[in-house]
């Protein structure tokens, strides 16, 4: 498996103050990495560093053999798509217009753009919203529209193309989603990963994370606590210590991956 993204002794933070220190990481094509950790552990900071928002304070971040900061903006935008935790769009664009903004870095032509937008609207179950005004949607609907916008940035010229070399970064993509749309998100991410897309996502829902991620990076206080498979990490002892609360872990009755639930 070739390496797409590499972090070497990475430190990142705001105003010269490191939130995240000494992270080492290798991500390959088609790998799904879950970020796990208490509030303020540095999950969003790591995602923003990977998106190129924050220049590393120390160490380096290498995308496909080239330091992330050395990528020209448009070339990087064709490889890396990032969904932030919250969005602040206050202008009454239609849903279709918002999603179409994800096609900005590409020049695949009108027909390819239309096909890709139609596909991502279907994946996020937002086809029926296409003509509505974004500002009048509910929180969960807005989140799915933003997800659709970010997904359609990943594709170059066709919704079915292989996705090796692309990096999808999702910060809390399921926070406002109902159960059905959470499952739809899981299916979509799995499908993208199967086609070679590398995915890094932070989720507070341990069970979604457990069902989706190949590996988990556990952050605490801005440092890497552990990097391993969900099966190895999601144990009562480790989670109890990490979150400071008592938890129980049982295997999923059908799929076998660990399920976490509170004891009280």
């Amino acid at each position, binding site marked *: 498996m070739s390496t797409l993204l590499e972090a070497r002794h990475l430190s990142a933070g705001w105003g010269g103050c490191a939130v995240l220190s000494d992270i080492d990481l290798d991500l390959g094509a088609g790998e799904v990495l879950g970020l796990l950790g208490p509030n303020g552990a540095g999950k969003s900071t790591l995602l*923003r560093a990977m998106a190129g928002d924050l220049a590393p304070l120390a160490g380096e971040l290498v995308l496909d053999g080239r330091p992330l900061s050395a990528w020209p903006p448009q070339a990087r935008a064709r490889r890396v798509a990032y969904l932030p935790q919250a969005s602040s*769009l*206050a*202008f009454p664009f239609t849903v279709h217009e918002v999603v179409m903004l994800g096609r900005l870095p590409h020049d695949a032509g009108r027909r390819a753009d239309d096909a890709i937008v139609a596909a991502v609207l279907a994946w996020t179950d937002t086809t029926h919203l296409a003509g509505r005004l974004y500002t009048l949607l509910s929180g969960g609907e807005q989140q799915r529209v933003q997800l659709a916008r970010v997904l359609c940035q990943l594709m170059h010229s066709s919704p079915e193309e292989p996705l090796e070399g692309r990096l999808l970064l999702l910060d809390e993509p399921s926070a406002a989603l109902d159960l059905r749309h959470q499952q739809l998100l899981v299916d979509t991410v799995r499908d993208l990963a199967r086609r070679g897309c590398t995915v890094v996502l932070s989720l507070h829902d341990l069970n979604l994370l457990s069902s989706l991620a190949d590996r988990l990076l556990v952050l605490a206080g801005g440092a890497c606590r552990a990097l391993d498979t969900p099966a190895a990490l999601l144990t009562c002892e480790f989670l109890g210590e990490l979150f400071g609360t008592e938890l129980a872990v049982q295997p999923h009755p059908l799929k076998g991956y660990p399920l976490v639930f509170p004891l009280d």
Partner: protein
Amino acid sequence: MGAILALCGAVSQGLFRNPLADPSLIGVTGGATLGAAAAMVLGAGALPALPVLTVISFGAFAGGVAAVLLVYRLATDSTGTSVATMLLAGIAITALAGALVSLVEFYADNALLRRISLWKMGGLETGSRPEVVLALAVTAVLCVALPRHGTALNALLLGESEAAHLGIRVGRLKAVLVTWIALGVGVSVALAGTIAFVGLVVPHVVRLAIGPDHRYLLPGSALAGAILLLLADTAARLLAPPAEIPVGILTAIVGVPFFLSLLRQRARFGMVAP
């Protein structure tokens, strides 16, 4: 002139991701007024070789740029640009510029004082040939230069870092746009004084009519702004002949109630409070 103001208004609203942004609210107009007033007082004596018009235009442009840079610097820290801080800083700069203009007026002689105060009310009555040529040239340049950034402005509405993730060079885009705005507002202030609310109301109305897509919003605003100001100027000339009411007074009197009613109704059109 109306086209320039409406275009600059539409671009500022996109740039600051705030439908309430307007060159007069973020201090550009205040700075430009101060620059022009200073140029009127100092320029005539200091640089007699240059045409007065050029000196005033340059003063207004310099004042506009200085104001916008100052406001921008105040509102920006390592985490990005805060729109709220920017509007507040704009109010402060406008107040400061207003006080300094008053100071200039205080030391000006009677003839100059009347000229400054008439000019501050905004008017189009003194359309000499070089003024018209300058206005046309700037309008043409802005009408060509600004709509090219329409798609990038659309991306900017998502947020600055989101636009960067879409491959937009955000820093350069902002610098270019701010320069164009300062040029447009500077020239417009130099030629016609402060004409209020065109830059705020026109893009707002056009957006309600055709949506927020800057590829259509910018040309639409330019056209609507030109038409509106033409109507306002005609009205100003016809209302109390032979006197001509300064058109800036008229646009403010009509524009403010209109804008307030927009504020109350905008939820109906899908605008949410910024």
